[in-house]
């Protein structure tokens, strides 16, 4: 029968030599299994005298613990090696492309409409809507454009066909968003603050015109609003929208049938190097029309012009989108060219807000 030290030497050597988990298990059974060499040795303890058992017992227990620890360590080592070998075999070309994820876009007009809403909501303007097909009363008469007014001819209006025997004046595709003013006033009365973004239609198609485009109308009526307030609102809007602190606006007297006094509004800009920069330079660019709401228009909206006064303004959404984002061609807005949509579009999570800014 071997002594403890021989057993230790032999099995430690065998543990170290075990090449795989099965061989290691065989060593474990041979040493520590029920009929293993160490177990058999322990059984001999019963036949020893107390003195001998005192030294042999702890020695055998220590041997058992030591072999057990060696087997565990060896097993972990073998498992690590096996894992390393497997992982080495599992090599993949990680330069392969990832699985495609869809990325959609929002149209710049939608994005700019939300930008407008964010800015004007902060100044207390709600968003009003109206129909695309309008009666000529809402589109013209209510806005102080009587049938013979030269401005009516300048609108290049699309008319709806009338059935034979239907003698009403033909409906029109709204030529501007201004009729929404009338509808909003009729629905809500004064005081009122609304913007009305939407599609408008004019019979015009060339390099810089499309038969459909987008406008936003603004209307604010209260007891004492003045043109000076109008100028402030527009300055604040331009500063926020173009994201330029030093915007400068120039009001120029003009004429619109539905406002009086009327002003066209220019913004200071520079075209140096063919690139538009708002708020610097020596050029002025017309960006919108505005004025104090004409008493006839207030009356058409059911509001007493003796008690209430206010302003209105209108501008082209596509146009300010082009200016802000450097989009060159209006016609492309409606061509749905995928390359254009991806290039000029906005991500679903680009939500314009005043806290984080309107654009990235």
């Amino acid at each position, binding site marked *: 029968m071997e002594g403890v030290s021989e057993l230790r030497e032999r099995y430690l050597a065998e543990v170290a030599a075990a090449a795989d988990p099965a061989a290691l298990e065989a060593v474990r059974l041979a040493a520590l299994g029920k009929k293993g060499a160490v177990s058999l040795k322990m059984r001999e303890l019963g036949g020893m005298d107390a003195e001998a058992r005192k030294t042999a017992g702890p020695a055998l227990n220590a041997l058992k613990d030591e072999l057990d620890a060696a087997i565990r360590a060896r097993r972990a080592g073998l498992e690590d090696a096996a894992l390393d070998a497997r992982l080495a075999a599992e090599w993949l070309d990680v330069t392969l492309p990832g699985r495609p994820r*869809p990325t959609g876009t929002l149209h710049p007009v939608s994005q700019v409409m939300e930008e407008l809403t964010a800015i004007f909501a902060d100044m207390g303007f709600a968003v009003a809507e109206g129909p695309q097909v309008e009666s000529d009363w809402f589109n013209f008469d209510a806005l102080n454009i009587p049938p013979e007014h030269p401005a009516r001819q300048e609108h290049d209006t699309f008319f709806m*066909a009338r059935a034979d025997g239907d003698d009403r004046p033909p409906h029109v595709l709204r030529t501007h968003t201004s009729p929404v003013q009338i509808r909003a006033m009729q629905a809500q009365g004064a005081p009122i603050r609304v913007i009305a973004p939407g599609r408008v239609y004019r019979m015009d198609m060339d390099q810089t015109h499309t038969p459909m485009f987008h406008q936003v109308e603004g209307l604010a009526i209260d007891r004492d609003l003045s043109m000076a307030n109008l100028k402030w609102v527009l300055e604040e809007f331009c500063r926020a929208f173009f994201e330029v602190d030093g915007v400068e606006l120039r009001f120029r007297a003009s004429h619109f049938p539905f406002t009086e006094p009327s002003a066209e509004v220019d913004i200071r800009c520079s075209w140096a190097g063919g690139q538009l920069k708002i708020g610097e330079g020596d050029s002025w660019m017309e960006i919108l029309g505005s004025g104090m709401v004409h008493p006839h228009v207030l009356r058409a909206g059911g509001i007493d012009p003796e008690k209430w006064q206010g302003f209105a303004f209108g501008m082209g959404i596509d146009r300010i989108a082009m200016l802000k984002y450097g989009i060159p061609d209006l016609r492309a807005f409606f061509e749905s060219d995928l390359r254009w949509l991806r290039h000029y579009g906005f991500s679903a999570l680009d939500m314009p807000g005043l806290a984080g800014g309107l654009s990235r």
Partner: protein
Amino acid sequence: MKFTLSWLKDHLETEAPLSAILDALTDLGLEVEEVDDPADRLGAFSIARVIEAVQHPDADRLRLCRVETYPDGPGTAPQEVQVVCGAPNARTGLVGVFAPVGTHIPGTGVDLKPGVIRGVESNGMLCSGRELEVSEDHDGILDLPADAPLGARYIDWAGLNDPMIYIKVTPNRPDALGVRGIARDLAARGLGRLKPRAIAPVPGAFACPVSVTIDPALKERGCPLFMGRVIRGVTNGPSPAWLQARLRAIGLRPISALVDITNFFTFDLNRPLHVFDAGLIRGSLRIHPAAGGEELAALNDKTYRLAPGMMVISDDAGVESIAGIVGGAPSGVTEGTTDVFLESAYWDPITIAATGRALKVNSDARYRFERGVDPAFTGPGLEAATAMILELCGGTASEVVSDGAVPDTDRSYAFDPARVVSLVGMDIPEDDQRATLTALGFRLEGDRAHPPTWRPDILGEADLIEEVARIASLTKLAARPMARPQPGVPRPVLTPMQRREGAARRTMAALGFNECITYSFIDADAAALFGGGSDAVRLENPISSEMTHLRPDLLPGLLRAAARNQTRGQGDLALFEVGPVFTGGEPGEETLVATGLRIGHAGPRDPHASRRPVDVFDARADAEAVLAAIGAPAARIWRGTGPAWHPGRSGALRLGPKLTLAEFGEVHPRVLAALDVKGPAVAFTLHIAAAPLPRARTTTRPALAVSDLQAVERDFAFVVASDIEAQAVLTAAQGADKTLIDSVRLFDEFTGPKAEAQMGEGRKSLAITVRLQPRDRTLTEAEIEAVAARVVDKVAKATGGTLRG
């Protein structure tokens, strides 16, 4: 409206520089569109003398000129330049106009370079009138008087240094269509003094041989006043140089003295006139509505056929002029004209506009009459023009004949200086306000203001405010903050529907769709494919045959967009639009829908074999995702939709038989073929407003109900007839135990020939997972088996399905 600076100064006494005048015009509402300063174009051309002209040694038609030039201006050191010149009048001693090397020649568009012509150097050019664009003359070089100042700029000497100003006049300002009206605005602004103007009547030397009458039908409305007179013994040659220069400067071609004079008054005083050759008028003149069918060869070389009621001027032989719009050629003046009839009339703007529009004539006369000339100036205009004709063409004037009277335009409006301050938000003292109105010709009587006769646009108190504000300068207006409607954090403004629209849009972009905006009008054929294209939605005046009808659906526009992208090589597309579709042609007959269209494959080719063609279940998932995003309640699937969809591969998500939230499916192959789209194409359309709004809005969520007890899942595979819908199996299984069954999910469908081989013809297998959630205690195996048996039983009853062995 075009005019020149010197023309303006005929009416405005001013020392203001050009730039100040231009700024003021724009600020006053007379927006400067363009300024043409001749000094920019012609400043380099100076007066020079030919010291000697000799024959070119090698060319018969060319002369060699030694030219005495003064590059540093008159009175400085002369410099001799050699010029080769082909003009026949180039001669020794000629004083002409010289352009040095480097000058741009406007008439030819050439930049002068030093040259060698047939072996001889030429370092500049002696110019013709046409090369400078100051006349049509190109027979020879300009030949100036011998005493013309050598070295001086030609334009200064010739009086051509007169900037042309082009302003945009808004339709409310007919008075600004005359130079005097523009001067009046500038004077009111303080840029000078409006020069006084006195028009003395020209006494008639004889009775007018032509009588005039206005048809009673037109006296009330149409032609309130018609005046005229004959001038005998005129000579109608070219008009004087100053008049020709003015007309040319504003882009008009001088024709003859008489015509030029009428054009002059059109632009100078906004007083269009007409001259007839009196020798060609038979009998008397009558202003009357056309009977219809008459034809007139007009002075613009076109022939017009008149409609009944159009206002015309006729003599005894027939129509001679379309009143206020364009004169007739047969009675027009020529160089041989000796006797003229000069017409000055006040025409009703609306009548002129209607006729002008119907005949599509755009004349300076129509443009002014339809905006409204000064009715009170009809007579003085006639007198002023008579005086000029007598001065420039000679002759003797008859007495004035007329019919009608100056219409009474006197009216007054309350003028409230405090209201001006309140509305404009600018502190303009009352005295300044009154001075402004007075300078513009208003007559103030206490708190009433009477507009002048030349301002038909002033129709109320608001117009007075505009005049004061305009003259005071809106450029100077200082911005003033506008308070929020209520103090504090702004309230939300969007309606639930508006928020839905935004959510739908952003969800679709998040799902990978690209947003398009397509036209609201489409072609009739495409509309018909989608049940539209009726006369109710037809445009009376479409701009093209592709845009004739309001769209009944967003799909045709998106499909056309897809076809365009496919021709550009983009095969896989996911496009969407949110916008109105039209059910009729009345206001409000429109609804807001969101449509998504997927074409081709779900993604690009990749090495992971994840590419697959899009199918109807993509469309269904898209529709359900967007419905969930807008907060729509769970909807049931109904088979089949409209004619534009594949009849067997489309469905609707509905809350009830009449309440459709969305449709989805494969687009019908006939529709794809008609719109030139290569499939597969699947789509969904969501009716944004259809889903009911939640009854009460609360931010509180219901309490979360979760169980600590382990849920149990059991799988079942049923063999059913091929036409049994999965929904029927799911509904039946769900009904087996309303409390214990938490959810039922379909996870496999086994169908087709292989399935039939196993399970028999016309059979398929559907596999579902039933998840049981114990409520108060763990389920025993017996309880689970009992529920499972009920599931099998329910499905068997509802669908005839049996458990797959």
